């Protein structure tokens, strides 16, 4: 729940469209319900996709969040 919550907050800060895909199912990163419906748990394989003006930056930040396991470092500030 907490990672999904953080992810939505971060995604909302970008203009671009951000999607996560798991096993063919695609979720909109702005929608927590959509993210939760993916049913992704630790270890799930996900594909991150972004389209729009700040797509590169979005990918970089969200990647960092996953790498740091949504912990400690306050990622929101780095956006």
């Amino acid at each position, binding site marked *: 729940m907490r990672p999904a919550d953080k992810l939505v907050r971060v995604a909302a800060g970008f203009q671009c469209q951000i999607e996560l895909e798991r096993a063919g199912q695609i979720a909109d990163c702005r929608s*927590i*319900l959509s993210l939760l419906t993916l*049913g992704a748990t630790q270890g799930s394989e996900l594909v991150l996709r972004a389209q729009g003006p700040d797509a590169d930056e979005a990918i970089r930040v969200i990647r960092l969040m996953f790498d740091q396991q949504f912990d400690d470092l306050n990622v929101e500030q780095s956006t």
Partner: protein
Amino acid sequence: MIRTFGCDRQPINQIDHFSMLELQGIAVSPGVAIGRALVFDREGYRITRCLVAVGEDEREWERLVDAVKQAYDKLETSRQSTTAQLGERLGNIFSAQQQILHDPHLQSELESLIRSKTYSAEYAVSEVFTKYASAFRKATSTFLSERAADIRDVERLLLEGLTGQPTATLKQLPHEAIVVSHELTPGETAAFDREKVLGICTEAGGPGGHTAIVARGMEIPAVVGVGNFLHNIRSGDEVIVDGHLGRIIVSPDEATRDHYMQRRRFRQSIATQLEEIRDLPACTSDGVRIELMANVEFPNEALSCIARGADGVGLYRTEFLYLGHDQEPTEEEHYQAYAQVVRDMQNRPVVIRTLDLGADKMGMTMPTEPENNPFLGLRSIRLSLRNPALFRIQVRAILRAACLGDVRIMFPMITTLDELRSARFLLRSVSEDLASEGKHIQCAVQVGMMVEVPAAVLMLDRFIDEIDFVSIGTNDLTQYTLAVDRSNDSVADLYQACDPAVLRLIQRTLQIASEKKKSTSVCGEMSNNPAYALMLVGMGIRTLSLAPAAIPILKKAIRSVTIGQCEAMAWRALRLSTAREVDAFLMNQLAGLVPEIVLQA
């Protein structure tokens, strides 16, 4: 069970909350209730109304936007105080719920239901959240299925904001009300607050379902199987539940309300007359004694049996022990439930029927394979014989309780001689066990079988030497004879206990049992109807078992007639050819013989 409401199938111009609406359903628990409706959705939460008039959608949307804002602020308060007291980790639970509230997908779904389908804000919330919650609950990951609870929390907050009051659940009704729902689960009905529930009315369900059973047990007027109508009623509407005629009236006009008020006064006036004969025996005017026993569901009903002047308990259903509980009842739980009734009945006979679960009464404790035809499936005695460990526990408790009074044991739904013999074999082995443990047991417990399958009637001459008594369960006997599932709305009208075919089976049962001097009683709903009951007496039945609340009126009827009049009634009824003729004839006879208890329409 997820079913869809009939809402969007109805043209909107039919929605008129001000004119009277009359609906026909199946009467399952007698009595008339007049009160305000509380409408529950399929998850047991209250919804106030379904659709709004065209043009009101903008107002509904604004109400929702307000409610979202309110809910968000409440969550923010909770988040801050929880974070301050317990740390950010727990505080973040609320921040996730805030995210759900602001979820763009959710918002657009809500908006589309309100704007293009004229759903009320409450109804839209209920629909959308139910959809998400059930999708999450179905998910295999426990993480996700637990999130369903978060979704429900947010929904409750929103509904509270919209209605301005805490959401009522079936367990905690805010005030006296008539409960209106699509269907009620065994757990919901078992948790009912008798003081607050004036009447029950459901879209689905049938005469043998748990709603019917619990309503009868609690003496709450109830009508089930009404069909789709939740879109035509909202919480707060005045409703009349007529549990005699199976009728529901929403927003009654003055004439209708007066009519029912008059009936209520009529019933109160005969209640005094009935009170006068409470301690007199149920004898025909020429002195033939008829035993009037009570059908009970719950241990605490024994006292109301005594108050109604019952001669004993003719059918103690034991299914309540299994309904609404997560675990199998222990031997001690069985024993306490039986002991209470046996003690309260003070040496009057108590007939305990072993587990009759299965089909529509399936409890939650025994997951079985889904069946195509549950009524023809693993139910009742079949289920018990298939689970001997569970069956033994119940039989042990019954035998122990038998030391406290006149306890008789009865096996339901016996179809073949093998089943009867297996059940008796288990009974013998349990009593040997108890004896070898040094437990004092009553050795002369009478054993009976229910006759409710046509095969048992046809073969009764072979069964009869192996049992002490017979009890005819007219509900199942009717259903199995006429091949009608009484919980199926489309064919429920074909279910007629007075069908000549059923009467012939009853007649044959009586004939065989009386040749061998074995007592025969009738314990189905048929005995609740005084007209039918007098006919049964005329056929030779001397023991009837019925809902405690129906005993006084039947006693009145019996005391008003001679046995000759009953016999004449039976003789003529048995010569008619259709259920409709039989019913009309019997009702007509009753009106002639005992006019005091028949309210002229």
